[in-house]
């Protein structure tokens, strides 16, 4: 059985730049296929396949061709060359309120769009009710959609898209405008769609949601595929290089391979550490030389270099296996090579899936201070309130330059720790309660 649901072969989309619409018309009607244009490629020779049930995230800067790609998958745009094969019913949120006539009411727009999707008459009235309940727009459902806020449009679009019961669900940035409660509801729905076996294609600028939601990520840059692989590594490399204009695909792919190769052994290592766990009755923190981050990504140095990233006990002993609840020190050294006007230290702790747990800056989040060249060390004192598991520290020195924040130096996944011996009552990632008291009433 073939479970490829989306097959893209040598796909290109050239936007032909014409001097006037008349030229375009002449070319389309010309029986001799004469050219009247200059080419600009939004998508260049792209090939990949997506299997049934995969959740694929697409990242890339503005204008990298993400939306063009999705529009071709949905069939709204016609490829210039190459092919897109799609097996199954596609439902897409390409834009807020896409396919809505702003003069019509919410209900009328739903009716129209369900009709376009070829639903039967009986289904339409049933689904309109379901979507209305889902979107929770109240009285507004009977108002023209031009009166809607962007959040309301998002609710209606999302409600419509999921109730079409798609095999392939395409979401382009639509979730970012909804409020937190609604976003939560949408993610829950997407999870349900995924469990039902549907394929999800997801575009986002927020690398966080790609990492937490997707099991594969594709990085597009100027219409070309730079990387295709594990979301955690792809987003890490994306963040590292995205500031640059010129990107060498080969360099990045070798960098990716290096990280991916070393981390494939991680699973073996985990087994090894688990085995060690059982001998851990001493309940004492220690340093395991095998427990080293394999996914470290080091940014380019711009006036500073971070080194010697480590976690120590209060008396200075270097450790990476931490006992839950005890206090430790996270520290790193910074050597500043040239005087920096406005800088700030930062660190971040993440789970193995790349989800942020917490971090800090010094001085405040919005304060930047001058630093003369020299050697510095920063220490962050923290209590290991995390649940059992592996965690990663980032270290960074941020500079404010003409109102944009840029890293002087940054190391992602710089230091790996393992937390052991947490209390059995803790669920999730972090302990948030002090005491548990049960009383009989």
């Amino acid at each position: 059985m073939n479970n490829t649901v989306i097959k893209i072969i040598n796909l290109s989309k050239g936007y032909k730049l014409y001097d006037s619409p008349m030229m375009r018309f002449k070319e389309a009607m010309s029986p001799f296929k004469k050219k009247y244009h200059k080419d600009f490629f939004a998508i260049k020779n792209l090939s990949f396949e997506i299997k049934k049930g995969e959740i694929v995230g697409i990242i890339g800067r503005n204008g990298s061709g993400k939306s063009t790609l999705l529009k071709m998958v949905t069939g709204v745009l016609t490829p210039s060359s190459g092919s897109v094969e799609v097996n199954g019913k596609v439902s897409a949120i390409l834009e807020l309120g896409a396919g809505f006539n702003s003069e019509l009411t919410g209900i009328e727009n739903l009716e129209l769009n369900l009709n376009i999707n070829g639903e039967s008459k009986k289904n339409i009235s049933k689904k309109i009710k379901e979507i209305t309940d889902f979107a929770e727009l109240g009285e507004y459902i009977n108002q023209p959609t031009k009166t809607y806020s962007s959040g309301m449009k998002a609710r209606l679009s999302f409600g419509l898209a999921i109730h079409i019961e798609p095999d392939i669900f395409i979401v382009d940035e639509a979730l970012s405008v909804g409020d937190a409660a609604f976003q939560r509801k949408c993610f829950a729905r997407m999870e349900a769609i995924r469990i039902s076996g549907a394929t999800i294609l997801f575009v986002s600028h927020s690398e966080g949601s790609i990492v937490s939601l997707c099991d594969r990520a594709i990085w597009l840059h100027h219409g070309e595929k730079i990387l295709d692989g594990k979301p955690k590594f792809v987003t890490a490399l994306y963040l590292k290089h995205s500031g640059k204009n010129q990107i060498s695909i080969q360099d990045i792919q070798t960098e990716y391979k290096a990280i991916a190769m070393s981390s494939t052994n991680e699973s073996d290592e985990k087994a090894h550490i688990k085995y060690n766990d059982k001998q851990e009755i001493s309940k004492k923190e220690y340093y395991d030389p095998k427990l080293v981050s394999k996914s470290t990504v080091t940014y380019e140095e711009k006036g500073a270099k971070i080194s010697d990233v480590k976690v120590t006990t209060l008396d200075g002993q270097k450790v990476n296996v931490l006992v839950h609840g005890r206090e430790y020190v996270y520290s790193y050294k910074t050597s500043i090579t040239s005087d920096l006007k406005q800088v700030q230290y930062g660190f971040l702790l993440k789970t193995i899936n790349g989800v942020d747990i917490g971090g800090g800056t010094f001085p405040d989040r919005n304060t930047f201070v001058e630093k003369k060249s020299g050697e510095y060390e920063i220490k962050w004192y923290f209590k290991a309130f995390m649940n059992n598991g592996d965690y990663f520290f980032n270290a960074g020195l941020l500079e404010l330059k003409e109102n944009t924040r840029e890293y002087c130096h940054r190391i992602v996944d710089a230091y790996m720790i393992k937390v052991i011996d947490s209390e059995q009552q803790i669920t999730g990632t972090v302990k948030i309660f002090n005491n548990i008291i049960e009383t009989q009433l």
Partner: protein
Amino acid sequence: MDILLKSLSVVNPMKIFKEFYRFILHIIENRRLISTLVKNDFKKQYLGSYLGLIWVFIQPIIFMAAIWFVFEVGFRGNQPMKETPFFLWLMSGMVPWMFFSNAVSGGTEAIVHNAYLVKKVAFRVSILPLVNIGSALIIHFIFIFILIILFLLQGIQPTIYWIQLFFFAICNIFLLTGISWLTSAIRVFIKDITTFVGIILQLGFWFTPIFWSPEMFPPKFQYLLQFNPLFFIVNGYRSSLIDNKWFWETPEPFIYFLMIAFSLFIAGAITFKRLRPHFADVL
């Protein structure tokens, strides 16, 4: 030479027949979508006005009353055309013309005005011009309804020939489909087509025997009328309502009409098909 043959091979009769069949099938499959879009089109026009859909009736009634006043009360010098009052004779030519003119000017804008669908939803765009024809058809039926009441009020008995009205309406729709595909597709690229179509419609009104009888045309140039497809339709409405003639009694205009309408249909279909992939890029 090769290229020329290739581009001509598009006009392969079997292929055209197949495409036509598929298109009809598609309309039947999507009849509910088309009716929803027609409904929306009406709502857009009349929503928010106090009289709402009543306007659909008021407009034609006032129009006819004005024509009646001008030609029956104002200038009374008009000769009744074969015992039918002049204003009824005029109306029976004007009603099909108005259907044609409304549908063409609406259909030309069909793609541009529905950009929200063309750009964002995967969708068979070729039905959009049909939606405008559908809206115009509903108004047309109301006009015919009022016209028939006026005929009855004048004491003219209905005849079996009246059912030909349906046939001529279908002929008109066939003609309109090709023309709207052609103009709506070109409209996406060239805005001027709207003005151009407006001028052609204005000229068309005076060059078609609506206000004047075809017999008034110089006999030497009578044959030129055959090349105007609207001549066949306008004349057809009159021969059904007034002259009591079947359309096959004079087959020549019908054959001319079929040839012209069919060529326009093919030209429209080919143009639309070629330009459609570019719509989402240009809009």
